C-alpha cells in the first residue's frame, strides 16, 4: 500500500501556457527515502506544492488526475488537515520561523491541532531532542546559525508527527558542514522513525548515500525512476542532472576503456574500487 499515490496528475498554473506537471503516476511506499531531481523548471516544486495541498488549495490553475497522501485526496482535504500527515520544509528556514523562541515555533503546530498542554509539551521536547537543539529552545531563531535554524524548521514540522516529510532543497542555504549534518538528521528521521522522505535536490553528490530511490523529472514528466545506481546512467547526464562527481569520473574512465565491476555513487565506494585496481596485479 502506497503512502503517496499519484494517478495521472497534471497541473497548469493560471496564466501559464503549458502544464508544469503532466500525467504523473507514481506510488511511494511507507518508509522510502526518495530524491526528486531534474533540471530547474522541471516541475519539482509544483509536485511538492501538490503533496501538501498548497495546490489546488492556494494556487489557482487547472488540476487534473488524483493525488492521495496517507489515504487523503489532496483535492478533498484542506492544507490544515493535511498538515499533520505531510510536513513541508523549505530552502530558506528564515521563511518558516517567526516566533520569539525556538520552543514557541515548534509548539505552534501542535497547539493549532488543539492538542492538550501535556501532549504539546511532550511533542515539543521530543522534536527538539530528535533534531539535537534542546539546548537552544529559549533562543530567538534569528540568533541561530543557518544550520540551527534549519533544524528548528524541521523540528517544527516534526512536532506535527507527519508520516511523510517533503523537503525542498533544505540544505542549499547552508555551509557544507551544516548541510551534511542536516542530511544526517533527515536520514535519522527516515531510519529511526520510519518517516517517508521526499527530498528535492540538485546536488546528488551529497544525498545519494541516503536515498533508496531517485526520481528524475524533465519538462513536467517523470523520465527516470529507480535506485541511485540504476538512474545515474548516461540518460540522466544528458538531461542535465548533476551526477555525483565520482560517478562522472567513473563514466569518463569507462569511456577511456577501463572496466569496472560497478559504477560507484559515493566517495567511499569509489575509493575501494580504485584501491583494489591500483593494488591488484
Amino acid at each position, binding site marked *: 500500500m502506497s503512502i503517496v499515490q499519484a494517478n495521472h496528475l497534471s497541473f497548469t498554473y493560471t496564466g501559464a501556457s503549458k502544464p508544469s506537471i503532466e500525467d504523473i503516476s507514481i506510488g511511494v511506499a511507507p518508509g522510502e527515502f526518495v530524491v526528486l531531481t531534474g533540471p530547474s*523548471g522541471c516541475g519539482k516544486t509544483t509536485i511538492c506544492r501538490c503533496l501538501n495541498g498548497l495546490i489546488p488549495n492556494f494556487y489557482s490553475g487547472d488540476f487534473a488526475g488524483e493525488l492521495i497522501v496517507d489515504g487523503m485526496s489532496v483535492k478533498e482535504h484542506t492544507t490544515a488537515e493535511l498538515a499533520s500527515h505531510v510536513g513541508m520544509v523549505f530552502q530558506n528556514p528564515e521563511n518558516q520561523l517567526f516566533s520569539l523562541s525556538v520552543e514557541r515555533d515548534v509548539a505552534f503546530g501542535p497547539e493549532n491541532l488543539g492538542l492538550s498542554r501535556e501532549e504539546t509539551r511532550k511533542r515539543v521536547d521530543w522534536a527538539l531532542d530528535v533534531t539535537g537543539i534542546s539546548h537552544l529552545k529559549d533562543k530567538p531563531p534569528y540568533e541561530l546559525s543557518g544550520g540551527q535554524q534549519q533544524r528548528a524548521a524541521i523540528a517544527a514540522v516534526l512536532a506535527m508527527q507527519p508520516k511523510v516529510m517533503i523537503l525542498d532543497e533544505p540544505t542549499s542555504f547552508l555551509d557544507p558542514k551544516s548541510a551534511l549534518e542536516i542530511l544526517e538528521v533527515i536520514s535519522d528521521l527516515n531510519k529511526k522513525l520510519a518517516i517517508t522522505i521526499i527530498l528535492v535536490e540538485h546536488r546528488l553528490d551529497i544525498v545519494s548515500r541516503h536515498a533508496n530511490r531517485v526520481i528524475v523529472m524533465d519538462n513536467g514528466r517523470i523520465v527516470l525512476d529507480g535506485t541511485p545506481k540504476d538512474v545515474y546512467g548516461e540518460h540522466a547526464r544528458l538531461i542535465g542532472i548533476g551526477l555525483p562527481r565520482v560517478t562522472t569520473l567513473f563514466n569518463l574512465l569507462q569511456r577511456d576503456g577501463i572496466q569496472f565491476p560497478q559504477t560507484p555513487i559515493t566517495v567511499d565506494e569509489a575509493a575501494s574500487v580504485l584501491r583494489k585496481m591500483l593494488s591488484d596485479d
Partner: protein
Amino acid sequence: MIETEGLKFAYPGSLEVLRGIDLKITDGEVVAVMGENGAGKTTLVKTFNGLLMPSAGRVKVDGVDTHDSSVAKLSRDVGLVFQNPDHQLFSETVREELAFSLRNFGYEEDTIDRRVASILETLDLARFAESSPFVLSGGERKRVALAAVLVWNPKHIILDEPTIGQDYQQKDRLRNFIIQLNAQGKTVIIITHDVEFVAECKPRIILLSRGLVIGDRPAEDILTDEALLDRASLTRPQIGALMHQLKDCGLPERTIDVYSAEQAILHALGRKE
C-alpha cells in the same frame, strides 16, 4: 582594483561582523569568497559597492575611497547580484526588468533592445522575455537577477551564491560565462558554499571565518587543507576527498577536479602495467 585596509564593520548595536580585513583584488581576477554561515561574506562585498561603509579602515575601488565616491558611481562600476532574486526583481516582464537600469543610465532604445536581447540569449532566458519574473522557477529568477546586473556591463561583478537552485547544466553555463566575463578583463567575485563548483573553476579563494581572512590561496591549496576547511565549516570536494583517501596509492592529493583526476588515474593504472 578593489582594496581594503583594516576594514571593520559592525551593524548598529551588534558585534563586529568584519574584524580587520586587508585584501587586494586586481582587475581581471576571479575570486571565490568562502566561509561558514555568518562569516561575513555578504557584508564584505556590500562594502565594495558602497551599500555599507566601513566602521573603521577603508575600501578603495579603482583607487578611490568609497567614502569619497557616490553610490550611483560605485553601483555602476561594481555590479552586485543578490543571493535572493526577490530582493531585486520588480518589473512586469523579464524584458522590462533588464531594460530598467539601461533606461536609467540614458541609453538609446535600440542599444537597449540589442543589449537585452544579447543577455537574454547568453543566460538562456530568451523564451521568458515576455513572462513575469514571478511565474518563473527559483533557478530561473536567479538568472534574471544576474542578467539584470550584467546588462549594464559593470567593470567588477559580484555574485552572491549564484549556484543555489541551479541545475547541473545551468551551473556549467554559469561557469563558462564566468570564464567569458573574465576573458573580457572583468573582475568576478563569487560568494559561494558550493565546493564542487569552486573545485571545477579553481579560482583564488579568500576564506573568511568569523569576520577575518583565515586563508587566501589557490583553490587546490584551500580545498585540500583539512584544518582550514574545518574552521570555515567547509568540506572537501568529492574528487578531492577521493584523491585524499587514495594518496597512499600514489595519486596526487591536490587534484580536485574530475578531468585532472581522470588523467591521474589513467597515469597510475598505466604505470602499474
